[in-house]
């Protein structure tokens, strides 16, 4: 499959996401924030980083880039979209996902290997994990606290739209330990930790993140 990876000004993990896409067995297609063009990709990854410096609110400015208009439109048609960290923030700002990400409760940037439970393996990004699988991948963020109002949180839980949850210590004050969520249709996934930093034994925190990039294939064959 052709998986697009968008570079915004200030994207940092775009090259890493491209590498992970390739290791996952797909073609990585670079996409540019200023283009009204998704280059006929079959899925899109919005990578981590500090787009526009994260100065206003993370993701607030990127959301208005030309490419996001295309992503929003394509997501509406069911295109698989994965937002990692800053990408998750952009998806929330774009209203493709509910809730918002705020400053970590301890108010410091945190970088560590984090244990998660995959709560929903019915998305195109998580289908190669067993439901309830416990994995360790890299977490690194300054504004990763997931918040939403109670009814929204209840609905997410009730509809099984919490994709991943933090295990052990909650690293950033996210409500109900939420690490990732999906939209109603299940094609758009936002995740605070970084599976693209867990795809090689040599670097990162092991290979537990690879499933996010191999799931697309499993899904295609399903």
């Amino acid at each position, binding site marked *: 499959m052709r998986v697009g990876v968008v570079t915004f000004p200030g994207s940092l993990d775009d090259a890493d996401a491209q590498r992970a896409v390739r290791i996952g067995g797909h073609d990585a297609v670079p996409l540019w924030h200023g283009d009204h063009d998704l280059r006929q990709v079959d899925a899109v990854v919005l990578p981590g980083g500090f787009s526009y410096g994260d100065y*206003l*609110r993370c993701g*607030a*400015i990127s959301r*208005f880039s030309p490419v996001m208009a295309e992503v929003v439109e394509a997501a509406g048609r069911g295109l698989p979209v994965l937002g990692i960290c800053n990408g998750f923030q952009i998806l*929330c*700002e774009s209203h493709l996902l*509910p*809730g*918002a990400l*705020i*400053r*970590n*409760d*301890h*108010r410091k940037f945190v970088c560590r290997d984090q244990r998660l439970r995959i709560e929903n393996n019915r998305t195109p990004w998580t289908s190669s994990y067993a439901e309830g699988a416990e994995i360790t991948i890299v977490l690194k963020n300054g504004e990763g*606290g997931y*918040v*939403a*109002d109670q009814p929204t949180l209840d609905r997410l839980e009730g509809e099984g739209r919490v994709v991943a949850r933090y295990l052990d210590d909650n690293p950033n*004050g996210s*409500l109900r330990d939420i690490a990732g969520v999906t939209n109603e249709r299940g094609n758009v996934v936002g995740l605070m930790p970084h599976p693209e930093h867990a795809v090689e034994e040599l670097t990162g925190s092991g290979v537990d993140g690879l499933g996010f990039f191999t799931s697309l294939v499993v899904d295609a064959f399903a």
Partner: protein
Amino acid sequence: MARVVVDVMPKPEILDPQGKAVHGALPRLGFTGVTDVRQGKRFELEVEGEASEDVLASVREMAETLLSNPVIENYSVRVEDDA
């Protein structure tokens, strides 16, 4: 030239880790009598010409779409007199 101020504050029901940290630090610094602290943002916009109703409408739109996130924040817009 006019100065328009946009204040953006976390909604009351939303967690405010920064305000909470400030509040927690006050007693340690010997300040008592503060029952709550919330931390938000203040934007000062310099606009060309008068702060007309049109200009204010446009600033309100900026506040609504860009400067605040309505999921977690409220905003208010006002013209600063002494600008």
